Structures are given as C-alpha cells and as structure tokens.
C-alpha cells in the first residue's frame, strides 16, 4: 500500500514548527529578550522574566515534549504509518 508520505511529512513539519514557536517564545522570548520588561510584573516573589528564565521555561519544555509525542501519534494513525 502506498502511503501519502508527502502529506505525512507536511503534517509532521507543521507540528514541529508549532512546537518550536512555543519553545522559542517562552525561553528566548520571555526568558531573555523580553525579560527586562516582564520583570515589572511579579508572581509571588518572582519577577516574571526571571521566573520564565529560571523556572517556567523548563516546565513548559517538559509539557511540550509530551504534547508533541501525543499529537505525533495522532498524525501517525491518521496517515496509517504507525508501528504495529
């Protein structure tokens, strides 16, 4: 059986792109480039930019991998290319 490998690869790259956007925004965006501005906001005793850099980005990284694994599994099934 011939799979729609082009469509599958396009869907895969789309998912990777979306995850990378979130990955970039929380770490390089909120954690580094926008940190000075975000530091004017506080959550508890944390300045927000500092929190993203030293705490928040890491929690989001963990979540991103599991979300990616789940969605990638769905794409595998949709295009019928999953392992048995």
């Amino acid at each position: 059986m011939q799979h729609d490998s082009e469509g599958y690869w396009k869907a895969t790259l789309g998912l990777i792109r979306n995850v990378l956007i979130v990955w970039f925004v929380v770490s390089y965006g909120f954690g580094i480039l926008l940190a000075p501005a975000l530091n004017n906001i506080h959550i508890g005793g944390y300045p927000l930019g500092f929190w993203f850099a030293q705490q928040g980005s890491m929690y989001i990284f963990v979540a991103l991998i599991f979300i990616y694994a789940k969605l990638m599994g769905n794409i595998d099934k949709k295009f019928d290319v999953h392992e048995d």
Partner: protein
Amino acid sequence: MSLQATTYLFVGLSFALYIGIAIWARAGSTKEFYAAGGNVHPVLNGMATGADWMSAASFISMAGLIAAMGYGGALFLMGWTGGYVLLAMLLAPYLRKFGKFTVPQFFGTRYYSKGASTVGVFCLLAASLTYIIGQMTGVGVAFSRFLGVSNSTGIFIGMGIVFMYAVFGGMKGITYTQVAQYCVLILAYTVPAIFISLHLTGNPLPQLGLGSDMAGTSVSLLHKLDLISQDLGFAQYTTSTRLSTLNMFVYTVSLMIGTAGLPHVIMRFFTVPTVKDARSSAGWALVFIAILYTTAPAVAAMAKMNLLTTVNPQIMTDSNVFAPDAQIKYDERPDWMKRWEVTGLLKFNDKNGDGRIQYYNSKSKDADFKAKAAAAGWKGNELSVNRDIMVLANPEIALLPNWVIALVAAGGLAAALSTAAGLLLAISSAISHDLLKEKFMPDLTEKGELMAGKISMAIAIMVAGYLGLNPPGFAAGTVAIAFGLAASSIFPALMMGIFSKTMNKQGAIAGMLAGIGVTMFYVFAHKGIFFIKGTAFVDSVGGPNFFLGIEPNAFGAIGAVVNFAVAFAVKNMTEPVPAEIAQMVEDVRIPKGSKAVDGAH
C-alpha cells in the same frame, strides 16, 4: 558519629549499592550487550538517562555558577533542558528508525563514505574529551573535600576510581546502576534544598521557596538578595545578564543544540524499543532532569544568601555593611570554612590586617560604593570562594546535620562517576570500533577490539586528568565548551542528514570540519591550544571575545551556523546525492516498518 565517619559510611554504602546492582544485572543480560534500554520501562530508562546526563557539572558546579551569575545563570538552566525538545522532535525518532548504534555509523551510512564517519569520530572525541575534563575538575573538588586532601590529590584518586569503574562496569547492566545513581543524586540534591528552603522561607518546596518571602518578614527572598548583593557592590541578582543579551542568547542556543548533538546522550535513544518510545522517552528523561534543574536556582540563591549572611552576620537587619564590627572575625569563622581551606578551594587573605573577613566585589564600578569601602579601610576582597564548592558546602554553610552533608558527598560522586563512565564508553567504542576496526584494522578480533577500547579509555583518563589539574575554567564552563564543539559539528550534520534529502557527503564533511574548526580556533585562541596554559593567542587576533563580544564557551552556535552555510554551499558545487540515499532518507521519516536495531556493531 563524626562528620568524616558519616561521610565514609554514606559514600561506602552508595558504592556498595552500585557494585551490587552491576553484579546482579550483569548475570542475565550478556545477550543484550547493546540493547540495554530495549526492555527497560520508559520511566526507568528516563531516570538512567537523567543520571547519565546530569554530571558533576550539573550537580556540583551549576548552582555555584548561578549563585555567582544571578539571572544570567539561566542560560545553563534553559540551555541544558531546552535541547531535549529538539532531541525529541528533530533527532530521536528518526535516528531510532535508522537503526544504527553510534553517531559515526549514522554518518558513514547516510553520507555513504568512511570519510564522513571518520570526521564524525574526530568530532565525537573532541567533544567527549573536553566534557571529561570538566568531569575531572568536579571529581577533584568532591574527592578533595571528602578525603580532606588537596585538590590535585583528589583528581588523582578520582582518575583511578573512574577508570576502574568504567572498565569493570562496561555497558552491561549500566542502566540499572544509573537508576540507583539517579536516586542517590536527586535525594542528595533536594534534601538539603528542602531543609534550607524551609529554614529561610518556611516553604518546604525550593521551587516555591525561591519565590516566597523571607521567614517572619514580608520581604521576598529574591528582593532581599538583590539588596544585599548591591550593598556589597555585586550586581543586582535577578537582572544581571551574562556579558550581554546577545551573548546570553547565543550561549543558550549553543548549549541547546549541543545537548541534541552529544553522542553519549543520542546513543540512549538508539536503543529504545520503538519510534513512539523514542519520542516520549526524551520527555521522561527531561522530567527527571527538571527535578534537579528547577531546584538548582533555589539552591543558588539560598547558598549565596547564606554565604553573605555568614560573613556579614548583621546584614539582614542593618544595611550598613561598612560598620567596623559588621564582618565576622577570621578567628571565629565557622568550621566549614576551616574544612574547605584544607582543599585550597577557599582562601582568606587579610589584606587590611584587621582580622575580619571582608567579602565584597572589589571590582565594582560604583564610585560611591568604592569611596565608602575605601573609607572603611577595606583593601580588596579577602575571601576567595571557588564556585565549584558551593553545592557541596551548602549544607555545611546552613549548619544542617552531618548525615545531610554526607549524603551530598555521595550524590556528587554518583553524578561524576555515572557521566564519566558513559563518556569513556562512547570514547572507547569510537576509537576501537568506528576508527580501528572499520577503517585501519578490519581483521581486528573481538578480543583485540576490547583491549583497544580499554587502552583508549586509560589514555583518555590520563589526558583528562592532566587537563583537569590545569582546567580551562570551572567544571560547568569547561563542559559548556564540549557542548559548543558538539553543537558546531554533530548536530548540524545529523539535522541535514534527516531533513535534507539532497545533502551529499562533500557538503556534510566540509560543513563539520568548518564548524568544529572555527569553534576550536575561537576556543583555543582564548584558552590555549588544546587547553595548554600559555599558548592562548587571543591578543594577536583581536582581544578577548573579539567576535561581537561573544565568549568562547558560547561560540558553538556560531560554529553551527558556519557548518550549515558551508555544507549547503559545497553541496551545490558537487555531484548530487545518489538516488538510493534519497530513498533511504524518505524511509527514515516514516515510523512504520521500524526493526529492532541490528547487532552489527
């Protein structure tokens, strides 16, 4: 029981545990020499990866560096975790489908030449050896304190133990040993952090404690730390970037893509059972890594707080740090300072002869601060604290019970040993198999291959030990250079091998050589040729950090850009990739039909 006896007991018990597990796991697993992770539960596999990954640099050195750097230390936190997102999405599932065991094997097949695999071996060795130097620096710190000997004696003893451990441990059963090592090191890291957080803020979770108010006040810990740091002429803790925003950005990129390009980490994802598992196992690994990494910033800030309040006992209530009796007398210094003085990693030099310890930033650019310091009769900073001792000394500074201090010593050794062993295995397999057997001596027997592997391990340890005595920086900084080398060579070549169907062997080889070449040039210019003291030539090429103010530890990201650019330029000038290789890349992208990794190592 005395502290020394308790430490011996804890370290001895933890070593006995590892050896016991190694013997137990070895018996049943001789057939699964390489597929150690194959039938291990993904969660356990994640723990083992965590132990393999979290080295002396993470455990011993990182929090001390964050304490010194403040906010800028976040580059280690984000850099060494964010790479797992790249690994999970861009590399792990495809390398698993590819079905090879080592990075040079992947290069050799995908780029259809032994030349590509040899260049891969060279890049792998450069990155892994530099990484081990960082480990030896950390091992030296741990052993010197634990045995009460000088730092260099500590390194010699560490060399011996790491060698025995790697040679006897081998690949067999190493996964289960690493699970145990993870448990020891994570307990050792979090228990003192919980004690200290509870003591300082009343909140037992260090991750929350760092964002809480100081116990009994309504001032937040971070705000107080900002104030105290500034009182003593240091930069504001929560906003001090590393050199510049650009440098911090590039440094973080370098660590992230280096993480995704380090051979001993990638190898772990070659051996998971399925492509699906390859995706989520990176997630589990990161869960276990994040437990330590989200605790580290709390350890850093609280250790700094405790150190500053130890030296300046009244600083919490009275911000006049220049008062004549504001600092402790050297004769009344706490016991932990005496213990660390033995190792030579903590030094006091009474520059103004008043018998008290002035610990402050004598390089402050604040004229007002300098004038006040001069008026108070301060003649320079008198206490030098090696940053690498911060985590090990932290429970002592906070006056925690002896068993906690002993536990931390055992944890530090676990972190250093597990990573050093993993790296030595990567080095020895690269030399004995990918280089000798594949290229120079095809009729090498299995026995000869094993012997060659052990000899290369011994040489690697001696080189690393020698350079560990004269390290190019603190453990975590040296390790950052290793990441730069991996980032500039291995990561781009892997990426292009999967995501570009047209990348050919000429492009990949030229790209790797250019990437690692330019990175090595920049690093050696600053740190000496092959890290040998006195051979640095940075002043003759433009002065320190001459490229846009980027420091050598961060240069891997620039090297990676050079790698990509050169690879695509050379590809367009040379003959296209063969049709069967393009088809192979197509196949690698689809999970269906993944086979167990073949044993043709």
